[in-house]
């Protein structure tokens, strides 16, 4: 078998670990997308979630921090998870896995995780209320972040 023409790419078929990680990230981003899409739809199509003794979703979702300018935070989540999902699917279906794209994915995952951490901190320290839908999104972004770091480490080692 001739050597790969580009030292920065991994040959296809790749090792199973990389594919499993890519599929895992796709799954996490799909969950995050569905969650964010629900919140975005709620923002535009429905009356507010009722105020409930059991949770503070209404407080979080109607707070001043729920918007970035004219854009609901939930919509930025939709965009983020869709970008990650299709980016990962591109990597999964590509003939060769370019390491720079894997690192770009890790960078994307880091940005998403950092944003989620900021939003969760705002809920805890400024709004003093937690929303389970936002928590699910934070969990998705955390799992994407961990998986993407693992993926880039595995790719670096040529797993």
């Amino acid at each position: 078998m001739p050597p790969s023409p580009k030292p920065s790419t991994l040959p296809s078929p790749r090792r199973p670990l990389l594919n499993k990680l890519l599929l895992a990230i796709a799954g996490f981003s799909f969950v995050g997308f569905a969650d964010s899409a629900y919140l975005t739809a709620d923002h535009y199509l429905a009356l507010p979630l009722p105020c409930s003794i059991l949770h503070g979703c209404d407080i979080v979702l109607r707070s001043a921090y729920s918007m970035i300018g004219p854009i609901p935070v939930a919509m930025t989540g939709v965009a983020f998870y869709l970008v990650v999902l299709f980016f990962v699917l591109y990597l999964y279906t590509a003939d060769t896995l370019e390491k720079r794209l894997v690192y770009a994915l890790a960078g994307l995952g880091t940005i998403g995780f950092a944003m989620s951490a900021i939003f969760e901190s705002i809920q805890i320290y400024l709004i003093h209320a937690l929303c389970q839908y936002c928590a699910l999104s934070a969990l998705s972004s955390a799992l994407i972040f961990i998986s993407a770091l693992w993926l880039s480490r595995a790719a670096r080692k040529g797993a």
Partner: protein
Amino acid sequence: MQRKQEVWVVAIFAVVVVVAAIGAAFLSGNAGSTSNFKATTVPAVTSADHIRGNASSTVSLIEYGDFECPACGAYQPLIQQLLQQYGDRVEFAFRNFPLYQIHPDAMISAQAAEAAGLQGKYWEMHDLLYQKQNEWTAASPDTVVSKYFDGYAQSLGLNVARFDADIQSAAVKQKVQDDLGTGNAAQVDHTPTFFINLTQIPNPTSYAAFTQAIDAALASSTAVK
């Protein structure tokens, strides 16, 4: 190559299905608050309740509300619209259900409305508290009366000194507690919670859904008040 195409088709299909399902759920008015819905009942409307609309109607709409709850505030324009459309055929009542666990000013605002009621301006204060919800909800319970509610009382022509005294009166506090008690007995756990003919309905997610529920009650020959 065929496997790659399958992956993309499945992914795009999944995204489209999610978007369609969420959109359909919201547009059909079934999303949101129905997951924990229990069709409980509440005591009949009495003279102790605050009533507007047609008090002799066979159909009643009771709201358990919290003046500090943003969702209750968002429903108020719909309630006003319902009053205009059904005011001659439906009895509307409001009962206090202050979510004091999450809304610091919920209790004091309920007492303020009741205190205004003692001077015959319950509904005026009720409407004003919702209209100006964004203005006063940031204030602490210790200062919200002097900073905001006294001004509202004045604008409604109330005797402010009496209003302030009534807010803290045992009778007013008891009225709020009585409402809270009937809500708790009916397992109300969120606001607003609506009851048509004393039976809880899922929170309507549109004006059309609201009118549909009321029209059904009006059409029902077994309607009880």
